[in-house]
């Protein structure tokens, strides 16, 4: 499927075009290919991700959606034997270029993982970790960052009286919001979320979804989800991945009500995946 064609198709949509004009790109992916050894995991991916939006990436298991989101902060490099070609521009600079320092990139682009992964430290230390490694030592500033981040992740009221307690004492849902708060503490530009609610119960999931709606005012959010209802509920734009290719990418309302590609329609209506 020619993705450039898709892009121009969606640009014909007047409403979409309006948003295009107002909003800036954070990421511009051009002809991205990725191999795990000899497995071709991403094939000619072209995607433009917009500022202050929630972009959902959906698709069946093994379609490359997690691989793609991990390329956006180059966490994919931790997998041995990964090769890439093509370009990912973040705010106009190619992050796949060797001269782009990963530490620098990841200061701008935070990530929330599938399984809550707080450090076995106190709640306070979990949040202060990011600012500390970037050299912020002033106790008063750190205190403020911790409170602001926990408030930002809507968990402050639940933990404010036990900041010194170990984060492992929190419930799974609280741990995940703590991880989101930890991510906010470095004041990133983009937040990547790799199936952030797949390990959570429905109520915790709802809280995280509400939180994502709140966060998109200040951050650009890219979320991988295997839950289509979730994508429909919370995202502004949705990309459908299949076997390493982008099949369809357009605004969420359109893709769910009126998908262009037969495969998208089949997936969305639950015929496979």
């Amino acid at each position, binding site marked *: 499927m020619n993705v450039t064609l898709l892009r121009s198709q969606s640009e014909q949509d007047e409403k979409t075009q309006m948003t295009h004009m107002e909003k800036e790109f954070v990421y511009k992916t051009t002809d991205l290919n990725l191999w795990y050894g000899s497995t071709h995991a991403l094939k000619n991916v072209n995607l433009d991700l917009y500022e202050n939006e929630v972009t959902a990436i959906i698709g069946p298991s093994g379609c490359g959606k997690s691989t793609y989101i991990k390329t956006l*902060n180059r*966490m994919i490099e*931790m997998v*041995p034997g990964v090769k890439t070609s093509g370009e990912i521009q973040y705010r106009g600079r190619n992050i796949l270029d060797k001269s782009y320092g*990963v*530490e*620098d*990139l*990841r*200061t701008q682009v*935070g*990530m929330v*993982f599938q*399984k809550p*992964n*707080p*450090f*076995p*430290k106190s709640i306070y230390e979990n949040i202060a*970790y*990011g600012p500390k*490694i*970037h050299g912020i030592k002033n106790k008063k500033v750190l205190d403020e960052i911790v409170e602001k981040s926990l408030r930002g992740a809507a968990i402050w009221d639940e933990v404010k009286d036990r900041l010194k307690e170990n984060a*492992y004492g929190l419930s799974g849902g609280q741990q995940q919001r703590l*991880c989101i708060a*930890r*991510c906010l503490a*470095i004041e990133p530009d983009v937040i990547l979320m790799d199936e952030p609610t797949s390990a959570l119960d429905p109520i915790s999931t709802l809280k995280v979804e509400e939180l994502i709606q709140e966060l998109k005012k200040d951050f650009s959010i890219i979320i991988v989800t295997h839950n289509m209802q979730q994508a429909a509920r919370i995202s502004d734009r949705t990309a459908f991945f299949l076997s390493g290719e982008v099949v369809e990418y357009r605004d969420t309302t359109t893709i769910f009500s009126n998908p262009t590609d037969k495969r998208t329609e089949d997936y969305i209506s639950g015929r496979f995946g």
Partner: protein
Amino acid sequence: MQKLVDKEIIAKQMSSRIIRNQMFKGLFFLSTLFGLLVLGVLFYRIITQGIGYIDLDFFQNFASRRPENAGIKAAFIGTIWLMVVVAPVSLILGVGTAIYLEEYAKKNKFTSFIKLNISNLAGVPSIVFGLLGLTIFVRALALERSVLAAGLTMSLLVLPVIIVASQEAIRSVPKELREASFAMGATKWQTVLKVVLPAAIPGILTGGILALSRAIGETAPLIVIGIPMFVAFLPKTIMDTFTVLPMQIYNWTSRPQTEFQDVAAAGILVMLVLLILMNSIAVFIRNHFQKRY
């Protein structure tokens, strides 16, 4: 529906399965009992033989030709001197190697070859390390029969054990924690220092203390590098010669007078208490600082 599971066979097998279950339980209990019994006999003999010699004088006297005057002052203090060299040298080198192998080294055939060889080194007879120490530290580096030469030799001996234990501890830190740190823009060193090491330290210390207890009990490498057995002075610097507890015990057991057998038993008692103390510290660290994920 056709039933394939014959209830009669199940009923017939039931009692023999339960008997076999009991049999193996008994077998495993007997194996444990055997070890405990032998250990019990050993303790009984050593305590009845040696307890009479343990008093303040025993710790304050140097070795002597007369059993009633013999003490472990030089050996006891010498063991502490040895530990002062072995503990920092082996821990720093061992943990450093483990960090490099687990966190920095590329995961390729060469690295796994090195890891395999380190595990093998842990099984090399201690006397071989003694020969190595004699060649390198005593002769080539001309350290003579000093605390330093003995300490470095012992460090080599316990290094593989510390490396393997530290590797295990580092490997057991979940990869999700490293990812969380890297995803926030932390460098490798910051991640190792602030996330990996704090989580791995209980395992590292447990392995380290067990390795040090081994170093306390070893005799062979020290005999090879020529550490004396009869010493009536204390080392003043790490370049002085000295002796250690197992050497002193070995010396006493090889004497003709039967009284010296009892003095040796007293020395063994002191060493056992020292070892139990160190192992208890290891258990304490493991139980109280171990993090569960």
